[in-house]
């Protein structure tokens, strides 16, 4: 290889920055002749700002954020594209010991079932007087905000009237819970494991139970940089794909947790990072629950930037009144995610890739082999309430949720 590429990537110290960290530390970036510099940031706002002024070219970013930026909701965002996802799942809902106790009295169980435990929360709210329960999320334009609200709404709880949803930095969630500032939160790892093991919290449910194999962080690319550096971007996608394979191997979990535990990356103990990787999550009170597909770095086309994921995020922006729906905005949302770039970059690797760019979300109740360029299994990807999202009928979905 003759040309070397210099790429600067921003990341927030979270478990799902793993693909970028591994691409750099395990030599996958170097294999593609990439000098990958990683810049750690403490908020999504500064990730956005540094993308805007081109301090960074690409970033580990919340799936809905590039869409929000392209829709003008999040200034001063540059125009962005998403040519790859950085895995599926990885979040959980943690509640205070007092709220868990009350939920348990109303039938909540440690299997973290989204229906059972949501129904228990509904009953707690019915019995409660005074101020509404307060839940923390990490960002207004985040999978966390939308999945928490989806879970509440599908259990008959109005997240705007019966719950107060506030934004907090993830590292502060555990303390806020312990100090009764909030009653629960939806965050990524290691912050649920931290809340449970270090701050006495209890898991209520997990993202994988609310919507299995659902989108979370993505690779956000400054569109201007991507347009002028297509080879560098393609090389990075190859490196990240190799990194995703490495992250997915159980024999690497320990090494990955040790790597992420370094101060330069997540900077937290290995014991807080391992559960999300091996799926054995401490739920509280010493109990551990094994959750399949808690965080999926590679399987089930976990890095494929589905347009149906982009459109689902868009429908939730509309649902929670962050933006009003128009056909033009729907088009902008769909075009932010770029499976075409993903396919072109990885086509020579001979890996199984989806032949479609969008799918009906929630349609697969069991693991299903799909038509593609190789052997690929997708799903199960069901919403816990049996909901389905057909990306070809966005308006019907929006209408069904606005009346609900």
């Amino acid at each position, binding site marked *: 290889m003759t040309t070397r590429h210099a790429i600067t990537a921003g990341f927030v110290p979270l478990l799902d920055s793993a693909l970028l960290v591994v691409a750099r530390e395990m030599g996958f970036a170097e294999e593609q002749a990439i000098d990958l510099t990683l810049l750690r940031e403490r908020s999504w*706002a500064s990730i956005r700002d540094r993308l805007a*002024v081109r301090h960074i070219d690409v970033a580990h970013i919340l799936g809905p954020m590039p869409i929000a930026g392209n829709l003008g909701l999040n200034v*001063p965002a540059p125009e962005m594209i998403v040519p790859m996802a950085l895995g599926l799942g990885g979040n959980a809902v943690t509640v205070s010991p007092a709220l868990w106790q009350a939920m348990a009295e109303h039938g909540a169980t440690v299997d973290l079932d989204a229906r059972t435990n949501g129904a228990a929360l509904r009953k707690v709210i019915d019995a409660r007087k005074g101020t509404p329960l307060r839940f923390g999320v990490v960002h*207004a334009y985040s999978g966390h905000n939308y999945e928490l609200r989806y879970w509440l709404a599908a259990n008959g709880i109005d997240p705007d009237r019966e719950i107060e949803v506030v934004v*907090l930095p993830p590292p502060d969630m555990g303390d806020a819970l312990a100090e009764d*500032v909030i009653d629960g939160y939806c965050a990524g790892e290691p912050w649920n494991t931290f809340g449970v093991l270090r701050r006495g919290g209890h898991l209520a449910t997990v993202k994988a139970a609310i919507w299995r194999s659902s989108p979370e962080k993505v690779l956000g690319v400054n569109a201007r940089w991507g347009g002028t550096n297509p080879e560098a971007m393609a090389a990075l996608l190859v490196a990240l794909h190799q990194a995703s394979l490495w992250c997915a191997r159980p024999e690497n979990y320990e090494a990955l947790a040790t790597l992420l535990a370094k101060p330069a990356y997540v900077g937290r103990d290995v014991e807080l990072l391992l559960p999300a990787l091996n799926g054995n999550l401490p739920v509280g009170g010493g109990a551990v629950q094994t959750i399949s597909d808690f965080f999926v770095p590679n399987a089930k086309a976990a890095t494929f930037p589905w347009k149906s994921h982009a459109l689902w995020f868009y429908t939730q922006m509309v649902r929670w009144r962050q933006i009003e729906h128009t056909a033009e905005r729907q088009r902008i949302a769909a075009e932010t995610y770029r499976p075409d770039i993903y396919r072109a970059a990885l086509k020579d690797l001979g890996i199984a890739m989806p032949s479609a760019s969008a799918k009906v979300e929630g349609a697969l109740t069991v693991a299903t082999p799909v038509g593609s360029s190789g052997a690929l299994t997708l799903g199960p990807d069901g919403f816990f309430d049996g909901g389905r999202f057909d990306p070809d009928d966005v308006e019907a979905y929006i209408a069904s949720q606005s009346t609900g």
Partner: protein
Amino acid sequence: MKPSGLNVLVIDENRIRAAIIEEGLRDAGYDQVTVIDIMHGLARRIADLNPDVIVIDLENPNRDMLESMFQLSRAVKRPIAMFVDRSDEASIEAAVEAGVSAYIVDGLKQERVRPILKMAISRFNAFSRLNRELEETRGELENRKVIDRAKGLLMRSRGLSEDEAYALLRRTAMNQNRKIVEIAQSLVTAASLLDPGGTQ
């Protein structure tokens, strides 16, 4: 033109930098300035203070919370928005470069806020410069201490004068193509391994 009348909030965990910004604001005639350097209960305090302008360091992890007040929170009486001077892209770059960002109450005229951001940018830059110089000075002091200890070791163990000890360190450094401080550090480390407690 007197700029006062604006209620300015400075949020910065770095107390010294916050004080420098506050002083700059007061010098420029802003007399309603509040500084928050403890992030605990920040949302509540912002709601209580109800500021017109917020200046916050870029690295502050609470920025996502602050920005969520645009839409999620019913706590603030007036919506706030990020200060983005669309006519001047360079000012965004200068702000990010300096490590500061600003938010204003929606509807506030940008001309009224621009001098605040400009002042904050220049003070943030001055603070970084100062910090860098301080680090360098601190580093030099540390280096000098290590070299002094290495000289002392050589003077005691080989009966050299101070000048001779320094010359030996320098010669060794030159021969090995390393810095004097590196040679001195190796010597101090080796001595403490050979004779724990004896080198101090």
